[in-house]
């Protein structure tokens, strides 16, 4: 069964949302999904960029009230 994990990185300047995602994925199984919550609009670009580079799947990005929700599936 696919587990969905919320990574609440709102207000995180350091280590920041992408680093939180990298750390979070290490604790997940292949096939699981992570939804990163970020108040940094840069996350809408830099998370998908890294996800593509490393070979995970970017499932979507949406903005709700200045919070970006970036959803990723762990592929390996």
């Amino acid at each position, binding site marked *: 069964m696919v587990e969905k994990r919320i990574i609440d990185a709102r207000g995180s300047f350091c*280590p920041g949302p992408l680093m939180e995602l990298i750390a979070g994925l290490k604790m997940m199984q292949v096939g699981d999904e992570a939804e990163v919550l970020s108040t940094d609009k840069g996350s809408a670009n830099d998370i998908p960029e890294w996800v593509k580079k*490393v070979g995970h799947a970017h499932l979507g990005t949406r903005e709700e009230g200045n919070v970006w929700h970036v959803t990723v599936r762990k592929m390996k």
Partner: protein
Amino acid sequence: MKILIIGGGMGGTILANNLARRLQGEIKAGKARITMLSASERHMYQPGLLYVAVGSMSTDELYRDQKSLLEHSIEFHVDPVTEFQLDNNRVKSQSGKTYGYDILVIATGSRMAPETIPGLAENSETFYTEETAVSMVKALRAFQGGKVVITVGVPHKCPMAPLEIAFMLNDYFKDRGIRDKVQLHYTYPIGRVHSLENVAKWAAPEFDRLGITYETFFNIKEVDGATKTLKSEEGTEVQYDLLISIPAHRGMEVVEKSGLGQNGWIPTNRTNLNMEGRDNVFVLGDTTDIPISKAGSTAHFEAETLGENIASIVKLGIPVRQYDGKVFCFIEAGKERATYAMFNYTTPPDPKAPSKAIHWFKLAYNKLYWTSARGLL
């Protein structure tokens, strides 16, 4: 009211002293009692390890006797916890004793976990323990030239360490007169040279100026010691002659074994600092899962908030403050210059140009730390 603090690092020590002063009257009247359990009789100044690794601080400068840092009213035992039994408000310790509490504070810190990456522990030098920092300074001393690669795991303690070690190694090899024989190559997990955008904007041109090459989006996958090759999750490879690692960290095993949090990170409320779902359990410093820097200053500022809140809970029955995510990190920038980054949940840092004054203040803080741990600074 029994207050039990687990962990005698920076956060636990500052909190214990802060509380002992705030609750002086209650402790004298027998209405409050503070107990600390630690794994060691010595307290280590962990930021000093970076200096040990490049030969500019000796190992004996790292330590003080833990009891000497604590207010006399604090009951201190070297007796590490082996099991947290939160449903029964008690912990079990290595000596076989059971300690009960009304309020529990978990400040057990984090540890590097190079073993999670194949080949990393055996083939790299690092500086997160006394033993590894000493090994690193010896390896540097023996190094006569070639490619030095810095690699960074996630998450790691001290977010400035990767940059600082790069600048310090540049100085180190320069001072030895072999900088022209050394290629310094820096790798970093995300798409810039530091997680803080403003720090990265400052650091990348500094790297260019100093001839430090760098590669971003590089997450360590494995190290092949036979061919001296570092491989990334992104599919790239880097050759090295000397590998310096900032390994990924994990929380303490006892936290994980007791089911308090995956990889030893405890789910923690970011403003009240209580463990999620537990009103009488608080978490400090590296042990939390809060998305901020695992740094001494984080533990320090959290401890100040918690000191005020726990004292207020004892006196009034309610907490009075919220933690705002404040972090302050010095950044050693090489050539006897330093700057700093200060930020919280809502305000990003805006580091100034490095100066000698900040560097000398950092060196002074290396000594003043002991005053800070006593809760006086």
